[in-house]
């Protein structure tokens, strides 16, 4: 029997039931829901939105304030990069003093006594690159590059050919040079935003590396060995940046969608340049020409034949022959460089071989008495190198480099290599004392995104000059180079 005076417990239960029903009717979460479900069903209040709005306004204020006061600004899209090399060297026998430049007479700018060791900053570069005009529709962009490089004037190393170039060459009182390296505009005639299967074609105007072989067009920061191949440092035309107009492109592109691996059957380049080197007007009335073509074997990414490339390059130039007494130019001499290269990269293995032969018109007699009718001969020089490398690690894999991480993760890689580099500045049998073979054993440790440690052991063997070996040109030189290269 139910009393008409309800017991308090019944009232409480009924109230709870009513409240629960009400809560359900209003969409409140039932008691068994987890916190995530309750959160999802809980609407935001006006106070919540105001809080969020305040946070957003604070963020915008901080951004605007920081942009105005603390950030560098440029007029156009710009990327700033640079590379610095720090080097320690040892060599035996000791590097001879720079007697030819008066160093032993007390001139402190020069190396006064023989030395076996040195600490150097052989190179520091600063690069600015960016878009001047961005074509959103097709990606036919106009880009620019501006680069500067510091170079030490006392960059002595065991591979230099003569005492003067090896130890001295000081031309500035502070012992360094700071020069313009890259200064160019590039326009892409082909779309660059369509995907990897699109062919490339870019015309570059200005001061730039020349598209000859492999090493001559490798920028400072990507060269595998501390010292570049001898021929690429020496031969006329290709050993320096040039000013002119060069078109680079590729055709018959194939993409293996396994990992979006792109290969172009043909890469090509053609250009016309001054031929007088960087930061100089043309020094004669003739222009130099460059041609290059390279073929990459079509192969899947997983094929052992991937990245097998064969290239051929040709440089036709003109140099001035001067009477060294009057400094008058007596003749415009022809200069040709022909080269072939083969490279194969299938990590962990990589092989590259390059051969170059130069033919330059040279005076038969002494330059000090040269006239325009002085006879010349075709002086031939040739150089070649073979580089074999084995790499451990993942730094050269795009996937591993870009793998998502919270911290400053960067895959490490280690590379052991051996290089044989030979150069003969004059191939005539009678010309001696001008051939050098350098064997290099090296270990590169790529331990951060832009930093590597390079350790090279070099054994340099010189052929004997007619006057016999000297301190400046000993039979063999053993050298060790340790170099940190860091970039930003």
């Amino acid at each position: 029997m139910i009393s008409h005076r309800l017991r308090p417990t019944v009232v409480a239960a009924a109230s709870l039931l009513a409240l629960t029903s009400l809560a359900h009717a209003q969409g409140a979460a039932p008691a068994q829901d987890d916190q995530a479900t309750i959160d999802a069903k809980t609407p935001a209040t006006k106070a919540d939105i105001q809080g969020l709005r305040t946070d957003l306004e604070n963020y915008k204020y901080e951004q605007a304030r920081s942009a105005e006061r603390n950030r560098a600004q440029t007029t156009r899209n710009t990327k700033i990069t640079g590379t610095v090399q720090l080097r320690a060297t040892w060599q035996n026998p000791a590097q001879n003093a720079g007697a030819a430049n008066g160093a032993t007479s007390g001139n402190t700018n020069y190396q006064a006594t023989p030395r076996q060791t040195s600490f150097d900053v052989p190179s520091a570069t600063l690069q600015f690159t960016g878009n001047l005009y961005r074509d959103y529709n097709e990606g036919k962009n106009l880009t620019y590059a501006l680069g500067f490089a510091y170079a030490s004037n006392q960059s002595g190393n065991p591979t230099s050919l003569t005492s003067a170039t090896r130890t001295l060459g000081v031309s500035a009182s502070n012992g360094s040079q700071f020069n313009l390296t890259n200064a160019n505009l590039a326009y892409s005639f082909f779309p660059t935003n369509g995907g990897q299967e699109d062919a490339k074609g870019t015309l570059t105007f200005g001061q730039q590396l020349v598209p000859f072989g492999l090493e001559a067009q490798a920028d400072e920061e990507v060269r595998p060995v501390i010292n570049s191949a001898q021929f690429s440092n020496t031969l006329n035309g290709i050993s320096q940046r040039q000013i002119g107009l060069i078109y680079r492109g590729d055709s018959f592109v194939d993409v293996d969608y396994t990992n979006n691996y792109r290969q172009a059957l043909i890469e090509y380049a053609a250009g016309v340049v001054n031929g007088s080197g960087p930061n100089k007007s043309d020094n004669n009335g003739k222009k130099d020409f460059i041609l290059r073509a390279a073929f990459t074997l079509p192969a899947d990414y997983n094929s052992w034949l991937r990245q097998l490339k064969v290239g051929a390059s040709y440089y036709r130039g003109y140099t001035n022959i001067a009477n060294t007494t009057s400094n008058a130019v007596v003749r415009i001499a022809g200069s040709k460089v022909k080269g072939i290269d083969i490279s194969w990269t299938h990590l962990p293995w990589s092989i590259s071989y390059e051969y170059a032969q130069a033919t330059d018109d040279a005076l038969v007699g002494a330059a000090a008495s040269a006239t325009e009718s002085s006879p010349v001969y075709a002086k031939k020089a040739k150089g070649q190198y073979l580089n074999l490398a084995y790499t451990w690690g993942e730094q050269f894999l795009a996937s591993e480099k870009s793998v998502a991480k919270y911290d400053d993760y960067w895959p490490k890689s280690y590379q052991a290599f051996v290089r044989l580099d030979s150069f003969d500045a004059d191939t005539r049998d009678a010309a001696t004392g001008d051939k050098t073979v350098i064997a290099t054993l090296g270990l590169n440790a790529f331990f951060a995104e832009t930093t590597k440690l390079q350790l090279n052991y070099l054994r340099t063997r010189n052929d004997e000059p007619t006057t016999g070996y000297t301190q400046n040109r000993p039979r063999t030189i053993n050298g060790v180079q340790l170099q940190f290269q860091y970039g930003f």
Partner: protein
Amino acid sequence: MKRRTFATVLGTAPFINLLPMGARAAEARPQVIRISFPGAGTGGRPIVGGSFPANSHLQRAIDEEFKADGIRVEWKHFPGAGPALNESFANGLTDFAFGHGDLPLIVGRSTGLKHKVLMSAGRGGDSYFVVPAGSTAKSLTDLKGKRIATFKGTAGQLTTYRFFERFGLSDKDFKVISLDSDSTLAALSTGDIDGTVRAPFDVEARGVAHRIHEILNDPYITRPSTVWVGEEFEKKYPEVVQRVVTRLVKVAQWSTLEANREKQLQLWATSGTAYVDYQKGWESTKDLRDRINPLLDDYYQASIRNSIEEAKKYKLVRRDVAFDGWLEPRYLNNALKDLKLEDYWPQQAADGKVKVPGRKL
């Protein structure tokens, strides 16, 4: 290349007995298991959402499984998506793929990558074609000759092409450009592209873009993704593979429970994809088992076969892709049996319709 040093002590005797004789001769356990996802969170953070393999990472389920054995689990998330995962595997740096899309999976096999398909990583869902907010296009036909973004080499490329086909068009009718997910989102905002296939909810809420087409839960447009293991790893460590699969199936089952829906949506949103994209994208999936389904059923197999034909048609592969011997369902079957989940998930016929309904809950 990373080297493995192999433990010498066998610690998984109970599992060994379940395995065939050939497998017993395999090595016991690795020091590390490298599991890769074909994607990363917004801004390159190492988190992905949207699937039960993603939950296994978010919950550290595989780590927990092998913790007592001292086996480390290395998780990799590739912003370069499926193609980047292929590169990693081709260079011996990945053991398992958790959720590889159909196109990179197929292309990888066509060029000699050797893996065994273990289970489906997910399926189904809706697809939307989205254009920038200021676009006047009403249909794909209005966008002929315009820039359509997709991440080439990924499953999204084939999905986009199927979208074109559905409206009587093809990739040749558009200027198809390749952008990754983050770049596509940015390009939509700035109007640098004219359309793309992606979830519309977040971009619509922000006024950045809007949908012009939606294709809801069409098994032809969307295709299953895949969990696979490298053949070499599978041969060496079959018991490890079994434990990974069994643990994944457990996670899959947890992920299908309605009580865990919100929990996992919020976990997925930590990847940077807006919560609303997940919430609305899964709203119409009343039974989570319809999409969170690990089975290698008729639908899975037919879908991959169809994708192979499409990849050939669009010249994305140069040679045949052998289907026979690719699937290795025994690990999944063992797991379903051990966990008593053999009848838990619905089985779909080749056309995507339910062939055998899942267990009543």
